[in-house]
């Protein structure tokens, strides 16, 4: 990698050596991909979405390829906050990059209890998932209405001593109101977008593919919409924004940063190219050189 180009960014006081972060749910706790390359080269890693108590996740088909993307309905299968703190944090710490714990919930109480436990643990940032479309009763409910989101963020803010990122759903009634409500409630940063609620039908079985009927769409198919949402949110809020949504290439990274993002998360592309994290980073350095960008922060929000 080209050391003469500065790729380091800062989000809510947390320094990242580069703006490429592994997105929650696509990267486990980093262990599997670390067998293929040193995942410590990434700016940071968002853990698999945690909940206060362990969850088995959804029954039935969980992943489904679509044109230029995929749908998933994993349903937050995870070992629970306590297990994560005892077992996964020490492993993730070996990577030496920014450790972001992603946490969802089913009730306000769960969010607050889980957040205070994680806040006291050895994490760098907490990413609050108020946007999972795949968990019935809760999960996304918090991510649809701005006033509901405001309440949960405010409560979590009160107990969370670590920098707090709120991950937004593109399924929010109004993404701008949602972003402002979360900022008002004390979010230190916003990340967007999570998956779009979508549907697939198995015509032979004459039934929806997913047991939950709807599932989350990700990948290149959503990128232009995600970019628009990141752009419009960045114009409205003062806190840093992390762009997510179908980012596959170094060019995509620059697009999101030019739209105003301070960093990005890559998710679905990890399945297409297991070395995507490393490849996007290497390409990013080369691309910056070609484009005459000396410091990646200089292009932030220029569009």
């Amino acid at each position, binding site marked *: 990698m080209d050391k003469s180009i500065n790729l380091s960014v800062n989000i809510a006081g947390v320094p990242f050596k580069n703006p490429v972060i592994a997105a929650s749910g696509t990267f*486990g706790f980093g262990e*599997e*991909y670390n*067998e293929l390359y040193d995942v410590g080269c990434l700016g940071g890693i968002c853990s698999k979405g945690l909940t206060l108590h362990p969850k088995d996740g959804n029954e039935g088909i*969980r*992943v489904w390829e679509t044109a230029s993307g995929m749908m998933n309905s*994993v349903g937050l299968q995870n070992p629970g906050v306590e297990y994560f703190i005892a077992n996964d944090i020490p492993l993730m710490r070996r990577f030496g990059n920014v450790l972001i714990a992603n946490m969802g919930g089913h009730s306000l109480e769960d969010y607050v209890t889980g957040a205070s436990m994680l806040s006291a643990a050895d994490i760098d940032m907490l990413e609050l998932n108020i946007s999972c479309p795949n968990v019935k009763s809760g999960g996304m409910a918090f991510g649809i209405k701005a006033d509901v989101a405001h309440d949960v963020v405010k409560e979590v803010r009160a107990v969370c001593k670590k920098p707090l990122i709120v991950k937004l759903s593109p399924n929010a009634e109004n993404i701008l109101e949602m972003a402002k409500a979360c900022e008002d409630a004390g979010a230190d940063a916003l990340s967007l977008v999570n998956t779009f609620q979508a549907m697939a039908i198995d015509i032979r079985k004459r039934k929806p593919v997913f047991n939950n009927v709807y599932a989350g769409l990700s990948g290149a198919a959503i990128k232009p919409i995600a970019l628009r949402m990141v752009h419009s949110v960045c114009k409205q809020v003062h806190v840093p924004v992390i762009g997510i949504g179908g980012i596959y290439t170094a060019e995509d990274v620059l697009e999101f940063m030019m739209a105003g993002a301070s960093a990005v998360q890559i998710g679905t592309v990890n*399945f297409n190219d297991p070395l995507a994290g490393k490849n996007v980073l290497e390409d990013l350095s080369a691309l910056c050189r070609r484009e005459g960008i000396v410091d990646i922060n200089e292009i932030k929000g220029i569009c």
Partner: protein
Amino acid sequence: MRYFDSKVLDNQQVAEDIFVLRVERNGAEAKAGQFYMLKSWDKELTLMRPISVFKAEKDELWFMYRLVGKGTQILSLLEKGASIKLLGPCGNGYPCEKLSGKVAVVGGGLGVPPLCETSKQLTHAGVTVDAYLGFRDVLFGVEDFEPWCDSIFVSTEKGEEGYKGFVTDLLKPEGYDCVITCGPEIMMRKVAAMCAEADVPCYCSLEHRMACGIGACLGCSIRTQNGMKRVCKDGPVFLSTDLLWNS
């Protein structure tokens, strides 16, 4: 586990919608029952395709696959010399080195190919192997079992070749120290039940939709007697007594 570039050495149709793809092995490992994630595209398709190892030759990996959708259609059009990417070996594989005596491998349809490499590795481990291979109507891969098996029993549903009916009709688990099975769930459940009755250990290899293939995305998790397990990483091979057959 490696992600590497390889070259297609051959890609032949061996039966209606069944193909055998041979690629350069490049020193890659392949334990019986393991699989690779394959792709010959860039970003045109999102996911790689999990395909089990049919044969691991000295310098080649052989994959037998059925043309079922877009991904396998693209694979089926690959010509000699084409580039292909492999991620693997994925999964645990069969514990051939721990087995002894006499083992039956019971395959149905596209569950047959991985049992070929398994039979070879069992033979190399000093195990005597009988193969029970069930097909809908057309046979494929059967002759590849011949060097490694004492007896080969074949069935087709309407009796076009071999026994008419299901291959499980021919199996008597009590004659074996272990049974290894791969194929449609309905067949493996039957084999597992027969083995339970005869008190013979039975290993099943599951098929599942998967995204990452390496245990990160939890897209292929199943509920087992020992909690949630990832077919791609903790499997695809499970002891039948660990399975709940909840798909």
